[in-house]
């Protein structure tokens, strides 16, 4: 079954979420108001919980860290300590320092990842061709070559290159025809499943085969059935599961 709650992946982790909060709240990353950000962070965790999303343990560890920092910030500074150290030293002991450092370090690589993404797109605009088959030109006998270190990685890399290499499209006409049949077929399948069930079916269960094409076709089939008023869809609450059922004659 496919879980749709993957939207949690919108944040790569607690650091990513914190960066997002810092930006949304327009906070200075070097002077984070810990109380405010902790509150926001906890609301987020709570909401995830209410939405019954799996909360990765890292998110909880960060919540604890934030609370610890918050309580340290609230502790009154002892007079004697302030006397002993100069104010600069007191700054260095800011309980937020370590977190800020981590956030800044992480943000660097988040941007670097962004740069890589652009490079990836840019590279995608160039098309190459496979090496030509030059067998006719080769000597009859294979000369014995001294083996270089060919590793499993080399084979994997060659395979990936092959997968990335763009393939010529089959003639358009056959492509469309094939898909049209599939959607129709899938619509019939869905209808007979629903009628046999005589009740409602979880939307997720309409996607038993995790193949891209099947998901797309199923989805289009469902949309078409809704449009034709052959099935109805209900959702009891926001983010709740979606159910579909066949519309009975005369309903």
């Amino acid at each position, binding site marked *: 079954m496919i879980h749709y709650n993957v939207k949690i992946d919108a944040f790569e982790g607690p650091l990513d979420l914190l960066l997002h909060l810092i930006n949304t709240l327009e906070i200075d990353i070097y002077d984070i108001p810990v109380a405010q950000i902790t509150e926001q962070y906890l609301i987020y965790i709570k909401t995830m919980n209410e939405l019954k999303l799996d909360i990765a343990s890292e998110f909880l560890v960060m919540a604890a860290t934030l609370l610890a920092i918050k309580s340290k910030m609230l502790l009154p500074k002892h007079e004697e300590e302030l006397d002993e150290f100069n104010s600069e030293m007191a700054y260095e002991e800011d309980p937020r320092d370590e977190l800020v450092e981590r956030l800044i370090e992480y943000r660097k690589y988040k941007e670097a990842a962004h740069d890589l993404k652009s490079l990836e797109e840019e590279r995608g605009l160039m*098309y*190459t061709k496979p090496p*030509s088959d030059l067998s006719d*030109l*080769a000597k009859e006998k294979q000369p014995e070559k001294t083996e270089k270190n060919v590793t499993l990685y080399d084979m994997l890399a060659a395979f990936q290159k092959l997968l990335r290499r763009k393939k010529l499209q089959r003639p358009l006409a056959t492509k469309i025809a094939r898909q049209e049949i599939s959607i129709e077929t899938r619509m019939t399948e869905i209808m007979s499943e629903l009628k046999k069930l005589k009740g409602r079916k979880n939307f997720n269960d309409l996607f038993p085969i*995790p193949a891209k094409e099947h998901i797309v076709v199923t989805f289009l089939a469902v949309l078409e059935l809704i449009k034709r008023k052959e099935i109805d869809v209900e959702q009891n609450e926001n983010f709740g599961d979606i159910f579909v059922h066949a519309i009975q004659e005369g309903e």
Partner: protein
Amino acid sequence: MEIINWQSILESLLFAAGDEGLTLKHVAEVLDVEELKAGEIIEELIQVYEKDSNRGIMIVQLAGTYQLATKKENASYLKRLVDSPNTAALSQAALETLAIIAYKQPITRVEIEEIRGVKTERPLHTLMTKALIKEVGRAEGTGRAYLYGTTKEFLDYFGLKNIQELPKLPDRVEEEFVQEEADLFFERFQESINT
């Protein structure tokens, strides 16, 4: 009005099409012009290639398709390229072929060629002489083509205990992809039922 550089586009298309070549109809379709016009563009490019002696490639008509090919007078250098000891011990072609066999065995030559989009006789020969692959049987049906599979030497060569130790890859890729697709469609679905 925007000027479309037909020649540049056609050269790109022919290059990317490789050994499969393009029919006149295909060219017309992709360029979104009449076949007559497509024919003119092709003819023009053929002329350009012919006039310029510095070109190392030319357009040839083969089995109803147009394809790019290397000029015959450079064949001696291409021969040196093939026979060069500097050419990797296992070339890209051989590695690709080996990967396909490793992951899809048993498999026929025709099936391998369908995946690679190019002739695969030579890489198969290379792999056979290096004993990395072997014939493991015959396919059913007419022709009864040979089926290829990997050998014990293959495992040794890559330091694998058994074939199960090969890194699993296509599933993972597919899985991630499906997840993203599912998200996208779910969003659209939500929109469509909310409106």
